C-alpha cells in the first residue's frame, strides 16, 4: 500500500515540477519574445517593470487577474467560459509524455524522468493537439461575434489541415524508432539525432508545428489586422490569459517535441539531461520568435496551398523513401 502511495506522491511531485516549470517558462517566454521582438525592430522592448523589465510577467499576470471577466450578451455562456480552459489544459497535458532524462535512481528505486510513459505516447500528443482545436473553434463560435467566428472557423480549418502534415512528417521517425513511445524515440537517437537522418521530416514538422501553435506567419485565426483579435476578440481578463498561456505552453510543447523527435531529446554532453532538454526547447522557441520577427502573415489561400500542396506531398514522399530504406 505505501509503495502505491509513494508512487502516487512521486507522480504528483513530477507533475507539480513540470507544471511549475512550464508555467514560469511560459510567463517569461512572453517577456523574452517581447524583448527580442523589440531588439529585432531596433527598440528596447519592455523595460519599465523591474530592472530590464524582469517583473513584466508579474505585472501582466496581476493585470490579467484583476481585469473584469466579461461575457458578451449574446454569447453561449457555458461554452464561452469553457473554451479557454480547453486550450490551456490540452496544451499542458501534452507534457505528460515528454521524457526529461534517463531513469533516475533514488534509494534503489528507479524513477523514470517522465510523467507517464505510455506506448502510444506520440498518438497521445496528436490526440490532445487535435482536441485543442475545440477551444479555438468553440471560443470563436460562442462569442457571438463575427470576427471571433471567422477566427474560430479559420482556426479549425487550419489546424485540421496542418495536423495531417504534422502527423505524416513524424511517421518516418516512428518507422526508424519502431515505437510510438517518446522514451523509445529518444533512446533510438542514442547514436545520432534524427535531424541528420530526416532533415525533410524536420522541416515539415517545424513548419506544421508553427502552424499548429497559430503563430506568425500562420496566425490567421487571430489576424489582428483583419479580425480584431480573431477567436479571442471578446475575451478579457484571465480567460484571455488562458488563451495566452495556452499559446505559449503550446510553443514549449512543440519545442519539446522537436527536441524529442529530431534533436535527441535530453541527450547531450556535460550538462544534466533536463537542462539539455530545456536548452533545446528554448532554442526552438527562439527560432520561432525569429520567424515571427521576420516573416509576414500568409494569405489564407497561401496557407492552405502550403499545407495541402507542399507539406503533405513532401511528407508522403519522405515516408515512401524512408519506408524503402527501412525495408531494404
Amino acid at each position: 500500500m505505501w509503495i502505491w502511495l509513494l508512487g502516487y506522491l512521486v507522480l504528483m511531485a513530477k507533475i507539480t515540477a513540470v507544471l511549475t516549470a512550464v508555467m514560469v517558462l511560459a510567463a517569461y517566454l512572453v517577456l523574452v519574445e517581447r524583448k527580442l521582438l523589440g531588439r529585432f525592430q531596433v527598440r528596447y522592448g519592455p523595460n519599465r517593470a523591474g530592472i530590464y523589465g524582469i517583473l513584466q510577467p508579474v505585472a501582466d499576470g496581476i493585470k490579467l487577474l484583476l481585469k473584469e471577466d466579461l461575457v458578451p450578451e449574446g454569447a453561449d455562456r457555458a461554452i464561452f467560459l469553457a473554451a479557454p480552459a480547453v486550450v490551456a489544459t490540452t496544451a499542458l497535458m501534452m507534457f505528460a509524455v515528454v521524457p526529461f532524462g534517463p531513469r533516475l535512481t533514488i534509494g534503489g528505486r528507479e524513477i523514470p524522468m517522465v510523467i507517464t510513459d505510455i506506448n502510444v505516447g506520440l498518438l497521445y500528443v496528436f490526440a490532445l493537439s487535435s482536441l485543442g482545436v475545440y477551444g479555438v473553434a468553440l471560443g470563436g463560435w460562442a462569442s457571438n461575434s463575427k470576427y471571433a467566428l471567422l477566427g474560430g472557423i479559420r482556426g479549425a480549418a487550419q489546424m485540421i489541415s496542418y495536423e495531417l502534415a504534422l502527423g505524416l512528417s513524424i511517421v518516418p521517425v516512428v518507422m526508424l524508432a519502431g515505437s510510438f513511445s517518446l522514451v523509445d524515440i529518444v533512446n533510438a537517437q542514442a547514436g545520432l539525432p534524427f535531424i541528420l537522418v530526416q532533415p525533410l521530416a524536420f522541416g515539415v514538422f517545424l513548419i506544421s508545428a508553427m502552424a499548429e501553435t497559430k503563430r506568425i506567419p500562420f496566425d490567421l485565426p487571430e489576424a489582428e489586422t483583419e479580425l480584431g483579435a480573431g477567436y479571442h476578440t471578446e475575451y478579457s481578463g484571465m480567460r484571455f490569459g488562458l488563451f495566452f498561456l495556452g499559446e505559449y505552453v503550446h510553443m514549449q510543447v512543440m519545442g519539446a517535441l522537436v527536441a524529442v523527435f529530431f534533436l535527441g531529446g535530453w541527450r547531450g554532453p556535460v550538462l544534466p539531461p533536463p537542462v539539455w532538454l530545456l536548452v533545446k526547447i528554448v532554442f526552438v522557441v527562439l527560432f520561432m520568435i525569429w520567424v515571427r520577427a521576420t516573416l509576414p502573415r500568409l494569405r489564407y489561400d497561401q496557407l492552405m496551398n502550403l499545407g495541402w500542396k507542399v507539406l503533405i506531398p513532401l511528407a508522403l514522399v519522405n515516408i515512401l523513401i524512408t519506408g524503402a530504406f527501412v525495408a531494404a
Partner: protein
Amino acid sequence: MIRAVIDIIVSIAAGFYTTGRHLFVRPVTESYPEYKRPLPARSRARIILTRDPEGRERCVACYLCSGVCPVNCISMQAAEDSQGRRYAAWFRINFGRCIYCGLCEQACPTSAIQLTPDFEHIRRDILDMVFEKQDLLVDLCGKDPDYDFYQHAGVVVGLAGKGDHISENPPVNTRTNMP
C-alpha cells in the same frame, strides 16, 4: 523549378539575416520621460488660439475649422463686436475627441488656430479635456507672426475705413462718371 526554390530560400534567408542583424544594433528608442526630445514647430499636438501682432484675437469664428474637423470636436458661436469685428462668443475644443490631425490649422484663414508641439496634455477627468476659449487663447502670434487678417479682408472693423486696407483703392465716387 530548382532555381525558383533556391530563389525562395535565398530571399527568405535574406529576411532572416536582416532581422537577425538587428539584434546587434543599438536600439534607436529614446526613453521618453527621462529624455524629452525637442519637437519641431510643425508637430501636431495641443491646439491654441493665437493673437494678431496688435494683441487682438485672431479668430473670426468663421466655422471653417469646425466644418473641416473630421471628428466634430470644435464648436463655436460667432458674434459681432461694437466695431463690426467678427469674433468667437464662445469657442470650445473637446480634446477628448480631437485626433490632432491638423486640418483645422490648414483650414484657418486667419492663422488663429495652431497646433503646438506640447503633447503632454492629458487630464484625469474627461470634462477637463474640454477647453474653452480662455483656455485656448494665448498671448502669442504663433507661426505666422506678422499676419493680420483684417488688414487684408477689406471689411471695416475700426482698423481702417473703406479703401484704406492693404492693396485697396479709395472708394468709388458713385456721384460722378469721371474715372
